[in-house]
């Protein structure tokens, strides 16, 4: 029975892949009046469906290890249905339906975790519903402008109409993406969600916001294909060589990534760090969407793909660590490299990708985004992005140092064993995919990015060969980089062994040059918890770390509660008050109406 349920669940997790492969032709489902749901697979949505198709089964395999909880499985399947509906939708109502199914099914999945607090659950559902209702509001504005729900470019749009349309939609998608200051729900929910589900939240759900943002640009007259005279540029003019409104979006994205990066560095909890890192990475994508050129959208799509793979890998690996040790804080772990070597490689590949180091594909996507910023001549944005992208090295280092290197800081870390195969299989697959994509960025562009760009009316990036990522500004060859580095590594290592002399292994982990003293087990040798603390001495970083949006939202909640309390006073249990009020209102209304009636 259990096996059957699990098998069914696995089959359900493959459904996005099946949809992607076999979907042909459109499907229409009437609701009422002229509201009809249209389902069709456009190249843009096919790209995001590909992400879901890749991610869904890989995230599902670790869930198989848990006791077969049919509600979890059912909700996950529902979530996948929601995402497919969202992506297949050719009209806004379908998009909204998918969006909402996704929202509430993921919320209910979030509740499956015993760690979820009321504050987290409420911030998750309320901000996501705010996003959904903003989306619905924007859809209704769109409906009043065009008289239909089909997703297509609006023919004619004034600046104010544009604002009325873009405002709510952008709010909706930016909440989903988690940009500052709308990111409140992201860190706590990614952190407290069931460990195997966090990967889905970060890798797949946040991408739906990205999809929405790109979709939003295609709505404007001229769309993305119009270049500077269409889309955002056509509506609000342009700044340097990019759309002025996109410049605002670009700064939103970059400020998000800077703030989130520094917050990530300051986290003590592995999953929370990854959550902030997610916000930061998606911030880059937001910036690229703001640029809106062919290079930028290409970079955004590529980064979305890479980020999906990386975050699946990292969250799954971290879930493995938490499973085996029961610990999630940096200060409790350490030296797991010998106990969980495959997980170590998982995190290693993950952080190399996250840091955007060549030759992994994180570099390819960042390269495209950087070049697009230079192309738009938005150098200040570029500098700000470099800041967060370089600061990311710090949290990446922490993510690998604190759990895997240094000294084991708890009995659990000393005795942990490698994660079970359900975790390792997706990890290995993801590592393979990342390395392959790093080797062949040109192939990635050709297969995944260019079809979308062509469909959006943008110039495809093109790639002369599988390995080569080409831009008008020049490119690089992933195969050559990897080969040169690999070759150098082999030669250097062999030469090292040819040198005279012998190697001696340290007798114990405490065999260190430690300021002239001899450390032992009681010496605090693990630097995992304190790392990054000294950053607070930098004024900018201290300012960022010293501020938070929590106070704002808490204040909002307090005010609403106070208003509720005030109004609840009206609902006293005394019938005489009810009658008095009714009569008073009657009299007042009569007076007003008679006076206003001009008698």
């Amino acid at each position: 029975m259990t096996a059957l349920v699990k098998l069914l669940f696995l089959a359900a997790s493959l459904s996005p892949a099946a949809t992607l492969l076999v979907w042909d032709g459109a499907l229409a489902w009437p609701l009422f009046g002229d509201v009809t749901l249209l389902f069709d697979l456009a190249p843009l949505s096919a790209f995001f469906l590909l992400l879901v198709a890749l991610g869904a089964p890989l995230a599902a395999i670790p869930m198989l290890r848990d006791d077969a909880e049919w509600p979890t499985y059912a909700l996950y399947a529902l979530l996948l249905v929601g995402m497919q509906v969202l992506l297949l939708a050719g009209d806004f109502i379908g998009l909204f339906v998918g969006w909402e199914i996704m929202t509430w099914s993921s919320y209910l999945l979030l509740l499956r975790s015993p760690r979820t607090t009321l504050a987290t659950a409420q911030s998750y559902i309320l901000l996501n519903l705010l996003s959904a209702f903003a989306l619905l509001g924007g859809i209704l504005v769109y409906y009043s402008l065009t008289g239909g729900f089909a997703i297509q470019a609006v023919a004619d749009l004034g600046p104010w109409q544009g604002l009325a349309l873009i405002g709510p939609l952008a709010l909706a998608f930016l909440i989903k993406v988690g940009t500052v200051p709308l990111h409140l729900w992201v860190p706590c929910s990614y952190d407290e969600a069931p460990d195997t589900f966090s990967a889905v939240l970060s890798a797949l759900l946040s991408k739906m916001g990205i999809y929405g943002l790109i979709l939003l640009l295609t709505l404007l007259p001229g769309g993305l294909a119009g270049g500077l005279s269409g889309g955002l540029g056509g509506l609000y003019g342009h700044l340097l060589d990019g759309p002025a409104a996109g410049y605002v979006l670009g700064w939103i994205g970059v400020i998000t990534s800077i703030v989130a990066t520094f917050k990530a560095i300051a986290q003590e909890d592995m999953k929370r760090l990854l959550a902030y890192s997610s916000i930061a990475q998606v911030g880059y994508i937001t910036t690229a969407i703001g640029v809106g050129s062919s290079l930028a959208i290409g970079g955004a799509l590529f980064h979305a793909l890479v980020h999906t793979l990386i975050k699946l890998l990292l969250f799954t690996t971290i879930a493995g660590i938490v499973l085996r040790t029961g610990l999630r804080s940096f200060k409790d772990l350490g030296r797991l490299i010998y106990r969980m070597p495959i997980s170590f490689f998982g995190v290693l590949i993950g952080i190399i990708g996250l840091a955007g180091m060549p030759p992994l594909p994180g570099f390819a996507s960042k390269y495209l985004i950087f070049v697009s910023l230079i192309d738009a001549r938005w150098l200040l944005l570029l500098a700000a992005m470099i800041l967060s992208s370089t600061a990311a090295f710090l949290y990446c280092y922490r993510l690998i140092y604190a759990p895997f290197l240094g000294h084991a800081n708890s009995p659990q870390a000393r005795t942990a064993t490698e994660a079970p195969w359900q975790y390792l299989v997706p990890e290995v697959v993801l590592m393979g995919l990342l390395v392959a994509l790093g080797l062949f960025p040109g192939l990635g562009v050709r297969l995944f990015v260019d079809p979308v760009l062509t469909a959006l009316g943008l110039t495809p990036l093109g790639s002369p060969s599988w390995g080569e990522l080409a831009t008008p500004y020049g490119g690089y060859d992933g195969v050559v980089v990897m080969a040169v580095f690999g070759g150098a590594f082999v030669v250097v290592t062999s030469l090292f062994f040819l040198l005279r002399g012998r190697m001696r292994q340290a007798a114990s982990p405490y065999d260190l040059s430690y300021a002239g003293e001899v450390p032992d087990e009681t010496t605090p040798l693990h630097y995992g918890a304190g790392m990054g603390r000294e950053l607070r001495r930098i004024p900018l970083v201290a300012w960022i770390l010293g501020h938070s949006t929590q106070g704002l939202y808490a204040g909002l909640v307090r005010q609403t509660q106070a208003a509720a309390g005030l109004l609840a006073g009206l609902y006293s249990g005394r019938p005489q008050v009810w009658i008095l009020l009714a009569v008073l209102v009657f009299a007042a209304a009569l007076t007003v109406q008679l006076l206003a009636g001009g008698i």
Partner: protein
Amino acid sequence: MHYLLDIPAMIATSYVLGFLFYGFYRQYNARIQRRWGPSIFQNLYDNLKFLFKSETLSHGPMFFFGPMIIVSGAVTTVLFIPFLKDSIWLQGFSQHGNLILIIYLFVLGPLGNALAVGSSGNPFGVMGVTRGLTRLMGLEVPFFLGLALVMLQYETVSVHAIMAAQSSIGEWTLVTNPIAFLVILLPFIASMNAAPFDVVGAPQEVYAGPRVEFGGRFLGVLMTQNMMLSVGKLVLLVDLFLGGATNLFILIAKAFALFLLITSISAVFPRLKTEQAVDFFWKVPLGLGVVGVVATVWLQ
């Protein structure tokens, strides 16, 4: 076949130039401080001594691979920088790379080594790495901004194309875009691990640093890569700002001039703390960069 000669030639060039430059640096510093410095070959001797140490302590496989990665990173970086202009020699694989790739390759090795430092289990080493990454976070912003000004000026990220566009002294980027050079100068000094931003390597005063656990051959290897990478950085700046070099002698002359400038600046300033350095980078060079962007990009 061509590569078989070219690659060793590039590595050798960078190595030889590296120990000569650093030998000169020690002499030069000594003279400023009114000492007799060591011989100009002293760095070569030191390096060879380390490389042939009879015993080396290792802290496990990851610790071993760190120095290998950092040297591979240095070699890779050097191989992606074109040393000469209008020549088929000393080009390595630079046709397959670009400026942004090179900037990232600069930090690839040190990050690999950071894993080894962490693996050693010495908290002081990790502190050193954190300091290094913090400084990197500070310097990279103005550095990249300055380079972006150059990339924007030539509308390419290919080092070859930038080099080719500067055919006479009047067309050197140093002349046509001096503000970009000023913006990157100080961050560049920091990236060369030179004073006043050298607290990370902590050569004398501070006991702890990324290299605290490395001894023997590992230390030799680290020293080798440092010299090679420094030459690579110098050559890159020659390519970008000084019009490149058509033959080895011009390259040495230009690189040496640049090195002299940097050495002179670093010889007279006291060391900054890491946070001070970062704050400084975000104020002075970055401010200059913003001014540069406004002046050369916005106001055109």
